[in-house]
């Protein structure tokens, strides 16, 4: 719902916001791309930012592969596209608990993903339509930033994440005057390097995930 509110209050018209919600279907990538779209950043910067924000799905995708190896490519592509933080976590929990129906794992996962998709899209539409009736003066676009804070907060439970986030923030602030929002990239890359270095001094930590897709 917040992604819906933030899209409309960020300056997208209702039809475009609906299209973005339906096609992109990645809350954190949408929230991350939004300020760049509003600031008129170049296409490649916006798409690259969405891509980095979505990189965690590569890990999920690798983790899911063994369970769907014998399904058709179309099935794997569809299950992949509709996979989110929540549905991935849900799938892995049922694997751990031994409650996954292994011969129908694709149908089971499709059920979880489709109900999650419907819930998410309905609440995004509620946010989009509702926000279009709220005056801009209320400053509701700030909910986008707050939602990102809520996404990041729970992942700051391991030292590499904290070090990486701090490095990313400082470098992004220092590099802010760079054109094309490139400061964002410098920050992200500095953060990833810092987090990886910190991790190499420590024990591996379990995979984290956030609430929204």
């Amino acid at each position, binding site marked *: 719902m917040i992604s819906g509110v933030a899209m409309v209050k960020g*300056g*997208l*018209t209702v039809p*475009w916001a609906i299209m*973005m919600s339906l*096609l*992109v279907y*990645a809350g*954190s990538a*949408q929230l*991350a791309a939004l*300020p760049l779209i509003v600031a008129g950043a170049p*296409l490649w910067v*916006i*798409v690259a*930012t*969405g*891509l980095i924000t*979505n*990189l*965690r*799905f*590569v*890990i999920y*995708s*690798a983790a*899911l592969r063994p369970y769907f*190896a014998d399904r058709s490519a179309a099935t794997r*592509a569809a*299950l*992949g*596209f509709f*996979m989110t933080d929540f549905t991935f976590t849900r799938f892995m929990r049922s694997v751990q608990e031994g409650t996954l129906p292994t011969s129908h794992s694709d149908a089971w996962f499709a059920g979880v993903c489709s109900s999650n998709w419907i819930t998410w899209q309905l609440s995004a539409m509620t946010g989009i339509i509702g926000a279009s009736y709220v005056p801009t003066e209320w400053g509701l676009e*700030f909910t986008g*930033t*707050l939602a*990102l*804070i809520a*996404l*990041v907060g729970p*992942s700051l439970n391991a030292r*590499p994440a904290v070090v*990486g986030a701090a*490095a*990313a*923030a400082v470098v*992004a*602030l220092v590099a802010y005057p760079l054109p094309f929002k490139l*400061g964002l*990239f410098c920050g*992200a890359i*500095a*953060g*990833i390097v810092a*987090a*990886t270095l910190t*991790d*190499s001094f420590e024990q*591996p930590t379990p995979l984290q995930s956030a*609430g929204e897709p």
Partner: protein
Amino acid sequence: MNEPVSGIALGVVIVGLALSTFVTRTSFLLAGARLRLGHRVEVALRYAPVCTLAAIIVPDILMHPPAHVLDLSLLNPRLIGALAAGLWLCWSRNIIGCLALGMAAYSLARVYL
């Protein structure tokens, strides 16, 4: 106040973002066993989102419009809202409460400071 963003350019941006979702989510599911994730790569991928989001959030709070210069003052409404939201998250995982408290602190600071 922002002009509504629209047009072909926005359509291209949306298609690009949709592709980024598709490519990352289906990557290993479609590539089959040919690809393998090294430990280093997996660690980098794991921390990429939190780093990117930090690089977006912090300047958004401290270098807010219209001036876009560093504002570390405790009178900065965005900083007040973000601190309130962060403190709430330390205490509870409830996202609705985090948004409500953050928005309330931000709005009060904008009105009264």
